[in-house]
């Protein structure tokens, strides 16, 4: 059977941040990257 799920287009975080004049801050702190890497380590908090 074909199952169709409706998707709603939302305002992106980018637009939200820009409207609140926080986009520059974000982009400086978090340049775009998409890199998956599994690094086995122990998170001290955990």
């Amino acid at each position, binding site marked *: 059977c074909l*199952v169709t799920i409706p998707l709603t287009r939302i305002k992106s975080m980018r*637009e939200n941040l820009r*409207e609140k004049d926080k986009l520059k801050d*974000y982009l400086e702190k978090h340049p775009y990257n998409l890199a*998956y890497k599994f690094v086995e380590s122990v998170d001290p908090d955990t």
Partner: protein
Amino acid sequence: GVYYESMRNYLDLAYVGTIRIGTPPQEFKVIFDTGSSDLWVPSIYCSSPACANHNVFNPLLSTTFRVSGRPIHLQYGSGTMSGFLAYDTVQFEGLVDESQAFGLSLREPGKFMEYAVFDGILGLAYPSLSLQGTIPIFDNLWKKGLISQELFAFYLSKKEEEGSVVMFGGVDHSYYRGDLNWVPVSKPFYWQLSMDSISMNGAVIACSGGCEAIIDTGTSLLIGPSSVVLNIQKIINAKQSYSGEYMIDCNTINTLPDIVFTINGINYPVPASAYIREGQEGTCYSNFDEGRGGLFVSDSWILGDVFLRLYFTVFDRGNDTIGLAPAV
């Protein structure tokens, strides 16, 4: 040990669907994301300010909840999410997937998540990308015989807020024109394919000699290697603004030519009305952006919603192929 999964920024995620987790079901708005493979939502134990704005899962209210006890730590471009692995029934549109593994966050990634209009992420990439030892949702739907074909497809509407859909187990032909062109997945990790070139007015402007591209519903823009994207920004006369984005004269939407992505010998033109986006107050921005680090060391591209709004896309796990056709 704890596995770090470095996921990308959530800056541009823009299409959400509703799922329910638990018995009785608790409702969440999630991104159906072909650029990752795990399902996670915030938990009631989450201490981050971002969780105050989102629906949170309360395990104590679900009679079908099972905790695995295994901590997970998902690292993002925009911060880190710490949490733990759990199992429960996940439902959407009549599909009921029992004992589905999912992440419950104790801490949300970065304070910027406060600006995210979604609660969590439902990953639809390959199982090789998922947290070790877990089975992604789509694989469970198929293994449990809940869908009749091992594929899913996206239609992203160009204008309206509503009208976009993701369909599982089959393809509704009313969402595209002509025939689907099938492209082999070049590496079953992301939904990755080999692209021939990117050109404008017949001249190759990027990806000369071929490159790799990922079709990613969890990205809005067209993301490529810095140097190449900078060249494209120059060609379309986009100028970097103080916020780091590239702004462009809105009038050029009517004059700039298509930028053509050639994949498997077929041309997929992207008109200026798609690679330029109109913001507020009559400002326009380029929909090309630079990727940095990791994947972008090589000549790889991410084709996000800008591309998916133009081309109906079928993600066929049964044949490891991607089907593309002009969207209606």
